[in-house]
């Protein structure tokens, strides 16, 4: 009761203050109807707002969608901000009321969908081409009959061919529901120009047979036209899809390459498998996380460039851990590759537990710098994400650096010499123990770089390395040792094969097929794709 009186009191005060004139013409009545109980009435009100076609209502519609809009006891349309401040919806003038006094307009899913469509429709008349294009793309898949007049109006005004094309498709989708078979046939013809996979589905739905034997589309000629249109769309989608699959394969391949490169080098040099290699990836990823956190607290302005600091930091940290590992454990186990495998596995267990205790068992969040988010859209809804592109470029740079190091420096010469014949290299005065730890540090450092890349595309948690070890080993086994080209070819090949198999067999079966393939491949070439040439006597 007291609350009621309070509301009334506030209302009287507001009346006394008088209302500020709205800054633009706004059909407040239609908006208030949005608060009605009846859903159909609400949709009708929304359609009326859209039909008026006033761009100025866009912010209001957004607020409505986000559930910020409400009506006060006096029937004033207000916005409640996140901080709980109440403002007049049209003028933005502050209103002397608390959020408790506002009856907020409840938006259900149906209304929300209608609002999104309405927003897209309104944006069709925006002056900016990009906005119109985005809006047209949005409604081209999901057009409503009520929007028809609006689309017609936009079509008449539109000058840009691409937007026009999309609008025509939106119109055609609406016409598909027309009772006139000729109109439907014409609409199907227009839809055949589409590059959108959703349109293909819309057309395919026409050909579906109902349980009673009739088709969703009664007219046979329309069905034939639809069949043709589907075929045309599929033809047009082949190329962008191919590019998309190639790209994701390349992306997976470059991730595999970054993870396996270091392992291939150390395996080639010392003949040991470092089971803790996956944990070097994890250390690199956590280093990225630490650098990111430091940037966030001390250099928020330079946050977009934190990767520039994370890359060398991850390399150094992982390399130091690797060197410590080689000096502390592995050097005592030379000539016993199987024991080394077990000891390094023990190290990996300890590193995982250490990280779990330091950072917690949960995944930590590593944010992409803003310039890496988003992607380049191809036709047919295929998007090439920027972060994946950056990783492909990054992998290429790392490979180039490693190649330069191995083939253009003295250290590289020594590494190749020891890889080919350790005893002979030793006799020639090459300090093999030093080469060993340097190379081990290099291999671990490269894994650290791989960790930086992984932190940008996936979860960072203590188990990060475990997810990649089997794939990484497969790359090394397939690529053979001591040859950069083998590792590159194996990594990229595995990435592409995986991604091309995925649509047919599903991700898991695809992976199993690849594993079986590798086991069979090893039958033919036990030394990998590129075996070292020369006489290597088997022990």
């Amino acid at each position, binding site marked *: 009761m007291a609350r009621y009186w309070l509301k009334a009191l506030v209302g009287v005060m507001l009346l006394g203050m008088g209302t500020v004139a709205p800054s633009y013409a706004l059909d407040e009545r239609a908006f208030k109807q949005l608060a009605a109980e009846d859903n159909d009435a609400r949709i009708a009100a929304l359609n009326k707002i859209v039909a008026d076609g006033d761009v100025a209502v866009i912010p209001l519609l957004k607020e409505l969608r986000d559930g910020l809009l409400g009506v006060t006891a006096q029937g004033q349309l207000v916005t409640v901000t996140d901080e709980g401040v109440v403002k007049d919806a049209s003028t933005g003038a502050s209103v002397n009321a608390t959020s408790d006094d506002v009856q907020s307009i409840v938006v259900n899913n149906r209304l929300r969908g209608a609002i999104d469509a309405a927003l897209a429709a309104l944006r069709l008349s925006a002056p900016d081409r990009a906005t119109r294009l985005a809006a047209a793309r949005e409604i081209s898949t999901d057009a409503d009959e009520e929007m028809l007049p609006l689309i017609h109006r936009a079509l008449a005004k539109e000058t840009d061919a691409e937007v026009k094309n999309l609008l025509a498709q939106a119109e055609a989708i609406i016409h598909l529901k027309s009772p006139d078979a000729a109109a439907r046939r014409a609409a199907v013809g227009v839809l055949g120009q589409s590059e959108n996979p959703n349109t293909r589905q819309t057309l395919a739905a026409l050909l579906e047979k109902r349980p009673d034997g009739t088709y969703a589309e009664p007219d046979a000629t329309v069905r034939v036209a639809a069949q043709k249109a589907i075929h045309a769309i599929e033809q047009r989608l082949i190329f962008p899809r191919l590019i998309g699959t190639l790209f994701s394969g390349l992306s997976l391949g470059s991730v595999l390459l970054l993870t396996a490169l270091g392992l291939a080098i150390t395996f080639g040099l010392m003949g040991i*498998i470092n089971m803790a290699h996956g944990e070097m990836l994890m250390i690199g990823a956590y280093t990225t996380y630490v650098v990111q956190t430091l940037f966030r607290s001390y250099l928020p302005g330079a946050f977009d460039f934190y990767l520039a600091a994370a890359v060398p930091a991850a390399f150094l940290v992982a390399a130091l851990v690797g060197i410590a590992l080689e000096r502390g454990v592995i050097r005592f186990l030379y000539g016993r590759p*199987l024991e080394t495998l*077990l*000891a390094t596995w*023990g190290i990996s*267990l300890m590193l995982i537990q250490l990280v779990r205790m330091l950072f917690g068992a949960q995944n930590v969040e590593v944010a992409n710098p803003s310039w890496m988010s988003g992607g380049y859209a191809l036709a047919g809804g295929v998007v090439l994400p920027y972060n994946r592109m950056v990783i492909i470029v990054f992998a290429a740079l790392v490979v180039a650096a490693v190649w330069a190091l191995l083939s253009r420096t003295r250290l590289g010469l020594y590494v190749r010499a020891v890889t080919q014949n350790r005893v002979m290299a030793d006799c020639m005065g090459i300090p093999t123990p030093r080469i060993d730890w340097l190379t081990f540090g290099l291999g671990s450092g490269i894994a650290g770089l791989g960790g930086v890349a992984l932190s940008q595309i996936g979860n960072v948690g203590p188990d990060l390395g475990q997810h990649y070890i089997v794939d990484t080993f497969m790359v090394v086994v397939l690529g053979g040792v001591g040859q950069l080209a083998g590792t590159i070819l194996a990594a990229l090949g595995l990435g592409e094969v995986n991604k091309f198999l995925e649509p047919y067999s599903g991700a*898991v*079966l695809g992976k199993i097929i690849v594993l*079986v393939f*590798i086991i069979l491949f090893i039958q033919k070439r036990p030394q990998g794709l590129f075996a070292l040439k020369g006489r290597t006597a088997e022990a």
Partner: protein
Amino acid sequence: MGPVAARFTRLFGPRAWLVLGGIAALLLVVVPLLRLLPPDHPLYLSDYFILLIGKIMCYAMVALAMDLVWGYAGILSLGHGVFFALGGYAMGMYLMREIGTEGQYHSFLPDFMVFLDWKAFPWYWAGSDSFVLAMLKVILVPGLLAYVFGYFAFRSRIKGVYFSIITQALTFAFMLLFFRNETGFGGNNGFTDFKRILGFSLADPATKTGLFVVTGLILALALLLCRWLVTSKFGRVLAAIRDAEGRAMFSGYNTRDYKLFVWTLSAVLCGIAGALYVPQVGIINPSEMSPANSIEIAVWVAVGGRATLTGALLGAGLVNGAKSWFTMTFPDFWLYFLGALFIGVTLFLPRGFMGLLERWQRGRT
């Protein structure tokens, strides 16, 4: 004394016979007798104790199988978990059928199949309600997989770390396969909620004791079989292959067949261990095939001492005993301990605890 009996008595030295016989008597006679006491008696052994020791005996059998291939033939398998799990799944299929219509959905199908909306058993479940066929599968499925895999691997002379890595990929691939619901083995959750075996209720303490005794007996038989193998000429050829495969080959031995036989036998032993494990523990799921589990098997053998067989049993007992103690008292430190064990044993105890015992004995005499 006939030649067979003479050979039998020479399998172990007199002291080893005494120790092993004592342990066998303890596990196979004293434990079941103590289980006959009323449950409130201070000497009564709890179900927990029976389960723990029963589990460790299954692990010991896996360690035995591992020692056979790694210790004597020099083949380090990082995928023995897959054979263990396949034996377990073969047994699990039978146990699932034994549930009958007492599942959540009261269907003749296992619950997970009802959940997937399957109407009938897939073809590979045929005959899973027969205990005899289930036992055949326990032996044949891991054996066949090992034979085919080994045939191809040894034919192309894959060895050393390459072989280890490929076996790891094998168990990883199987784990992925069994994680899928559509594979028809219960996906993530695997098989559980077993009710009875051969009509005996699994919840009954007497059934638990029975399974314990059967496990102990089979473990003892497996130890004798392995010991007999490695002390025979066959065992010497294996050791020759391990130490210098090229020379063994040039001496006219078909090393591939020797390796293939011991590899397949090892897988079968693992499968039997898995089949004994499942009814005692009451669950089998794909995580048994995770690469980490298979690597752990290797450390049991390394801790006990390779190429000793009894060392493998000792190692499995020590590590798993330590594991159940750690996970109860210091769960955070178990991985440190296990990791340190891997490193410490490879660096300082290349011959494991058996090597340590031997040195200590030699020092006394």
